[in-house]
């Protein structure tokens, strides 16, 4: 084991909260080590509904949560312009829905008071005929509809932008690095022991260790001899590789829950479930029952939903704070910053609960606690300081495309990931040759991701640049991508093949629960293209 490194703060967990804390503390001038056992955002963050939303449902519980959530969403929208886009919901009201149209509109009228905080427009109310004009795929049985605006976001890029900025301000950030224990000195936690991506064990000393491990929070707390109780809740989504509609749609499930079909940049997410989860957090499966539960709800408002071919499913576990005797759906998304000094673990702080939309605020409040413990006085600047790629406006996509010999569409997608740094990515190396045509992704961008964005596996490339996220599910690009990344990381031919095989196997697990007739057609094609990788 090499000599331990020393830092002011070590953060365990590279989801959006951990990455946000790393950025916040680095910008305040502290030396930070951020450790993530998998890849950035690969846990709860990436498996969310991909939305920065204000949370109209909290209006029933606590208006202050709605206000804080919309306000923080507004900050995120300003600092991450390239990563966000408007998502407009049609909320159809059906006969026998739990809320009639007057109640729905009342809720939206109240929500409109908060919408300006996140630069969103007020609601509109539509008759049934008008709703059908806006979305002809809705059922003609609807009574009317209201609309509501939220923001979509690419959470993987949001996490990585925070990591990137933390690194730019002196942090060390390691993915594929698992914390296996804490270093203690009597009643104090003074560091962590971790296993790196190469399998080597190391130690890092830190004045404060922050536990931002999401649903894994209890596991890390246990290492410090402290108990943090969560009530983990599993949620799944069905992913369609296109926009099914330009408008997002909400539906009521058989048990009265609100479900969403969210139109993101180039795909649709349909979800989500919310069930108590007791299993292995590192192996969460999607069940066919869960898929049927979602489809049943949407069939009622959007009858042709089963005609569409899903490309995969996602599943994640929410780190909800513990509460006895409530239905999962009624649990609050509130969060708590816990200083474990009173539990005999001085120097150990946990952030638990919360949601993506409030990650910046959670990071700010956790960083405030850390700074107080260290006697460090520096204000938080993350509400106004742009994330990388947002320092200046982007040039028109067609112009960028012309300069580098790629289509305007490819240039536009590049800009959504890298913002105003898109040109630098293309300048960085090689050609604008397309590796993944569905997304689309150039060879230069993929090489850049391997060289500068800590991509170590093809699944990392899926998260960082959207490799194989489109309709062909990687049939046309996985082997070529393994070649490009492999050449950057100096993989042998067999390592490249193994990397592709590992990716195909992982992707199959998410795809299997939703394969229908046309899904199998695509699967046959992929099996042929993969030349034995999937066997």
């Amino acid at each position, binding site marked *: 084991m090499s000599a331990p490194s020393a830092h002011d703060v070590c953060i365990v967990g590279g989801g959006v909260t951990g990455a946000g804390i790393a950025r916040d503390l680095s910008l305040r001038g502290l030396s930070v080590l951020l450790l993530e056992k998998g890849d950035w955002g690969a846990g709860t963050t990436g498996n969310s509904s991909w939305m920065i939303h204000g949370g109209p449902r909290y*209006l*029933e*519980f*606590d*208006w*202050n949560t709605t206000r804080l959530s919309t306000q923080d969403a507004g900050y995120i929208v300003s600092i991450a312009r390239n990563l966000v*886009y*408007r998502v*407009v919901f049609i909320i159809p009201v059906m006969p026998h829905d739990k809320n009639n149209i*007057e*109640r729905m*509109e*009342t*809720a939206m*009228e*109240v929500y409109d008071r908060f919408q300006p905080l996140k630069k969103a*427009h007020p609601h*509109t*109310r*539509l008759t049934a005929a*008008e709703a059908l*004009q*806006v*979305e*002809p*795929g809705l059922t003609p049985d609807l009574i009317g509809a209201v*609309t509501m605006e939220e923001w979509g976001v690419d959470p993987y890029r949001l996490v990585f932008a925070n990591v990137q900025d933390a690194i730019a301000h002196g942090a060390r950030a390691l993915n594929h690095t698992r914390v296996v224990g804490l270093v203690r000195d009597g009643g104090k936690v003074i560091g962590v022991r971790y296993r790196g991506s190469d399998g080597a064990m190391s130690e890092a000393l830190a004045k404060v260790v922050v536990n931002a491990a999401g649903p894994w929070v209890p596991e890390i707390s246990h290492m410090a001899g402290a108990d943090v109780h969560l009530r983990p809740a599993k949620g799944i989504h069905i992913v369609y590789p296109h*926009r*099914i*509609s*330009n*408008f997002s749609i909400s539906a009521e499930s058989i048990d009265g829950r609100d479900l969403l079909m969210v*139109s993101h*940049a*180039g*795909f649709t997410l349909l979800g989500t479930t919310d069930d108590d989860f007791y299993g292995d957090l590192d192996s969460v499966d999607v069940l066919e029952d869960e898929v049927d539960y979602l489809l049943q709800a949407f069939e009622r408002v959007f009858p*042709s939903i089963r*005609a*569409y*071919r899903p490309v995969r499913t996602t599943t994640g576990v929410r780190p909800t704070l513990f509460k006895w005797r409530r239905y999962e759906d009624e649990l609050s998304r509130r969060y708590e910053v816990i200083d474990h000094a009173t539990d005999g673990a001085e120097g150990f702080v946990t952030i638990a609960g919360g949601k993506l939309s409030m990650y910046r605020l959670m990071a700010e409040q956790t960083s405030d606690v850390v700074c107080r413990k260290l006697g460090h006085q520096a204000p938080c600047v993350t509400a106004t300081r742009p994330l990388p790629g947002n320092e200046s406006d982007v040039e*028109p*996509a*067609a112009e960028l495309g012309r300069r580098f010999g790629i*289509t*305007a*569409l490819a240039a*536009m*997608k590049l800009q959504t990931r890298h913002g105003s740094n898109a040109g630098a990515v293309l300048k960085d190396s090689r050609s604008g040759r397309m590796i993944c*045509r*569905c997304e*689309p992704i150039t060879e230069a961008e993929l090489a850049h991701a391997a060289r500068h964005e800590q991509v170590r596996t093809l699944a990392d490339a899926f998260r960082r640049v959207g490799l194989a996220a*489109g*309709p*062909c599910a990687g*049939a*046309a690009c996985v082997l070529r991508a393994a070649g490009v990344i492999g050449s950057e990381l100096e993989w042998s031919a067999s390592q490249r093949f193994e990397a592709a095989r590992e990716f195909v196997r992982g992707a199959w697990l998410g795809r299997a629960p939703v394969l229908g007739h*046309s899904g199998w*057609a*695509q699967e046959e*094609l992929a099996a042929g293209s993969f030349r034995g990788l999937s066997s």
Partner: protein
Amino acid sequence: MARADSLAKLAFAYGVHLTRRRLTRPRSQLATLLETYAHDGIRPLLPEERGRHAQLIGCINCGLCALAAGRVGKVRLPDLASSYMRLYARLGEAASDVDGDSPDLEAAAAACPVGVPLGEVAAIVRRLAAG
């Protein structure tokens, strides 16, 4: 306490809403909605496009259509169906890609193993790209 306070405020808002509905004549807000989001490219599909939509986005990117026909403007046919058909809201920014000639889309559609109507795909992409 927060819950009781929230429910009370919602109940009051509901009363205000019902009173306002009784006292004012409702006006259509459809035009406002469409105008508000036109700049973001969030526009409705036409009923005929919706009717065929599942087929229109059925491409599995096998590439066979590229053998039967060439490009629509600068875009390879498989990319039109697999990539451009994903991005309705932002096609306006890629309008220059689809300017230009169309190849024999009937022949290309006939080559498609999953029956994607490529002529209709080209039409919808061009319509949404034109804004």
